[in-house]
């Protein structure tokens, strides 16, 4: 799942430099993802995993790293019984 998330983050995060080697816990915002770009990441994740992030998850801490995103996605998939 983290590879799939990483691919989405790299494609939609609009980073300035090369980020294919981003560590799972690297701070995506510090790596150059703007809050505007994070919306694109959220939309792409919703489409790829067929989920909807509830408003309580739409905050900086949930999208600050690949690990944090994976936790949120796993939680939503579990809730959906998948």
């Amino acid at each position, binding site marked *: 799942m983290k590879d799939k998330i990483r691919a989405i983050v790299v494609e939609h995060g609009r*980073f*300035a*430099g090369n980020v294919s080697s981003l560590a799972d816990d690297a701070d995506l915002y*510090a790596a150059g993802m703007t809050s505007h770009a994070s919306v694109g990441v*959220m939309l792409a994740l919703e489409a790829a995993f067929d989920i909807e992030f509830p*408003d*309580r998850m*739409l*905050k*900086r801490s949930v999208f600050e790293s690949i690990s944090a995103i994976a936790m949120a996605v796993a939680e939503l998939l579990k809730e959906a019984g998948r």
Partner: protein
Amino acid sequence: MGSQTDASAARLERITELAERVTAPAAADVDRNARFPSESFAALREARVLSAGVPADFGGHGASLTELAAGCSILGQHCSASAMVLAMHHIQVLCIARHGASSPFFRTYLTAIAREQRLIASVTSEVGIGGDMRTSLSAVETTGSRFTLNKAASTISYGAQADDLLITARRDPSAPGNDQVLVLVRRGEFTLERAGVWDTLGMRGTCSPGFKLQSAGGVEQILPAFGDLASATMVPVSHALWTSIWLGVATDAVGRARTLVRAQARKTPGSVPPTALRLAEVTTKLQLLRQAIKGFIADYEALIVQPDGGLDTLSSIGFALRVNQLKVSASELAVEIVSHALSICGIAGYRNDGPQSIGRHLRDIYSSILMIGNDRLHATNAALLLVHKGD
């Protein structure tokens, strides 16, 4: 609690008194000559208003956002430029008080603000970034324990009059544009070279031309994590205080219209003048504006006393939407109210002299839709609404 409320009321009473005695008589000249409201600020310093937002532990008043907003609104009724300078100063103070209190340097600096009534200006604008506060081109360059920071600012309000500057910049020369820090430099640690003039339609007394900034200092003067600071404090506090100034400007414009309607009514006792109906309409809008600001500030104050300082909620998309909505709706409403007041006052309002003149109010209030352009905020909200569900 009672004594705290009493102390707050007494401080606001003092601002009302000085605004009427000092700020109001100078307002027309400040506007006409686009000059800094120096007599206002001498009086505000004497009343120790520049440290109103500094916590009591550091020698300030520890005033709530409600109180700071009320003070800006009072001043805004007499001179919007004075009010805007004070609001921008309060914003810088709160950023330092809320995000720098764990640093020995900033704790000492907070006591200096209170003791010396230092005036702090904000340097967030930059030539070449198109008005996006969350992006910087300039970067902090560090050698050992010292840094240098140079920036071409497209506008610095009261830059020439400020004691100290709070500057956004990239963390280091290799950091991306949005990885920003906030840097404090004090008088003697920076030079400003004016680039251009500030000759505008309104808000003329804020004296906000562009400047080329060169500065240097110690690394302890850098506040990290500007992203959190911006969403938790700088943006919500800015929008709360700016909207409060606009409320003050709108209140005074409606007050002038009310005086005129009352004079008309006195000439024809027993019949309600037609302008009274327009006055009823505009006071309804004024009430709407007042309540929107009050509700936002109350919610914000409830959040920041939470154990995490409310950061979890303050950094959410839902709150970002709300902060932007307040600014957009309040600015549109304020412009509407002031032009409505002008139509009530008629030619007396259109004149640049006389007690019903609305000209300065109208010119000043148009800045509200431009300072962080409403189109930019609508565009941001449009993007955020693609993921926000409103649940």
